[in-house]
């Protein structure tokens, strides 16, 4: 069963065709990786799926409903969680409060249930020690974790992650892999953009490669990575 689909998506900025007839489907419980060279349009695709950018044409469906014209807040409440590539924490609030925003608005929890959920999410994302810190004092990588924690706290059916693993040490990356595997095991569909391919491969069961606004490969991860076009466009020499 598919939860999230995008069909015939186009997005232009002036002359630049950032998304050029992109199609995308995600089945329930699937873990999908997206790779592609810088500027390929990965983040833009995520933006279109999450609702922060409206496509010039094409439709986005969530669980069968057309949500192309719905704003991000509506999509979030209907089950799309999203972590930004460049973290956007609520700087004036504590880490805990950041997560509670997701838990109360996104997941619709109230009172103690929200608090319990928030704490659980913080524990999962290894942020419990920083719960009372103002988010603006976090370093980049903690911000990335917070970005993910907030998205997880909204209780999503589909979780869209944008480069949350970059800059992690091997051990930290391993923890992240465990966390995301748990989420997938819990039935959440994960769509994950990441350049650190070996980390990505530990989680995803499908890989999409984009280049210049087009999907150039989509399928079983190792097969995609062996694809000559992908090697050429993305991995470069020496791989």
């Amino acid at each position, binding site marked *: 069963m598919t939860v999230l689909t995008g069909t015939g998506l186009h997005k232009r900025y002036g002359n630049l065709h950032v998304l050029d007839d992109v199609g995308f489907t995600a089945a329930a419980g699937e873990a999908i990786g997206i790779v592609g060279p810088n500027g390929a349009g990965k983040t833009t695709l995520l933006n279109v799926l*999450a*609702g*922060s950018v409206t496509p010039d044409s094409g439709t986005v469906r969530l669980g069968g409903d057309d949500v192309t014209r719905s*704003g*991000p*807040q509506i999509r*979030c*409440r209907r089950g799309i969680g*999203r972590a*930004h590539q460049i973290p*956007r*924490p*609520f*700087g*004036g*609030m*504590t880490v*805990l*409060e*950041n997560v*509670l*925003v*997701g838990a*109360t*608005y*996104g*997941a*619709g929890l*109230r009172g103690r249930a*929200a*608090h319990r959920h*928030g*704490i659980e999410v913080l524990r999962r994302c290894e942020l*419990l020690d920083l*719960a*009372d810190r103002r988010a603006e004092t976090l370093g980049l990588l903690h911000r990335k974790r917070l970005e993910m924690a*907030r*998205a997880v*706290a*909204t209780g999503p059916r589909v979780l869209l992650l944008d480069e949350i693993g970059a800059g992690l040490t091997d051990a930290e990356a391993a923890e992240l892999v465990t966390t995301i595997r748990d989420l997938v095991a819990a039935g959440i569909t994960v769509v994950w953009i990441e350049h650190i391919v070996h980390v990505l491969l530990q989680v995803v069961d499908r890989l999409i490669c984009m280049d210049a606004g087009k999907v150039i490969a989509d399928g079983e991860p190792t097969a995609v990575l062996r694809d000559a076009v992908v090697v050429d466009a993305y991995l470069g020499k020496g791989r």
Partner: protein
Amino acid sequence: MRVVRSDRSSRIGSAVLIVLGLILATVPQFFVATVVQQLTSLFIFVILAVMWNALAGYGGLVSVGQQAFIGFGAYGTVFLAQRDVPPYLAVLLAAVASAVLAAVLAPLVLRLRGGQFAVGTWVVAETLALLVVLDHSLGGGTGISLRGLNVFTPDERRAYTYWLALAFLVLLLAAVFVLLRSRTGAGLQAIRDDEEAAASLGVRVWRMKAGLYVLAGFGGGAAGALILANTLFIEPRSIFGVQWTAYMLFMVLVGGLGTFEGPLLGALLFFGVQYFFADYDAWYLIGLGLTAGAFALFLPRGLWSLVQVRLLPVGYHLRRDGPGD
């Protein structure tokens, strides 16, 4: 491990505030006219400060045009009183009307951001002032007095105005407090810090901003109506004047932006400075300006940043119950 919202000092704080409110309610019985009148002015300042802080400090809506509602509340009262609505009822209705005005304006001004919002709201206020000037039944540019209150003796009038101001103040403080304690508070702060990110977490950005704007409109209107009841004469240029924003800015920033307690402190300070030094004419104003500058430079987070305790239980912390948790 659990999330806690109040610790002991904040419980004591709330209790003290409630008791203080009750004591204040008895003031007209026991104190001389001057105390009653001064406290009324103080309450009005506090209302203004609290409302502006709610807008700017929690919602990130830096409005330079809240005087639109002050003026509307005041002129609304005059308008209703001219139609034989009992004056104190008119005050109440005018505040509600200001909230309605805010709801009408919200779709227009809330599309603006940052500097555009600031200047846009200011221009809206000026436009309203000019419209009032054009209306001769409201006194046009001459200004107008609220005469209906002369049916009360001075003591009654003072006491009623006082109680009304206190009631509005308590109501608005409670509203802001409840708002901040409910999830709305967190949602608003999220919008203030990053609107797009808030939206992507499911916060209904527009609805919340509009709600806050309407509340602030109500508060501004109430303040305006009370100003009229307290001073009895208004004139468009000053009641719609941008100096109100300057005062609110002063009180809120000097007290502490985005804190519940800061604006209360700021209003108290502003009022005190005015009370004690206003007789020094130009020197007083220079002093006021220097105070503003000094706070901006040396204590930018405001007076409340000096006080470390949390007086009122807003905000969340994590309490670790035991090492084993």
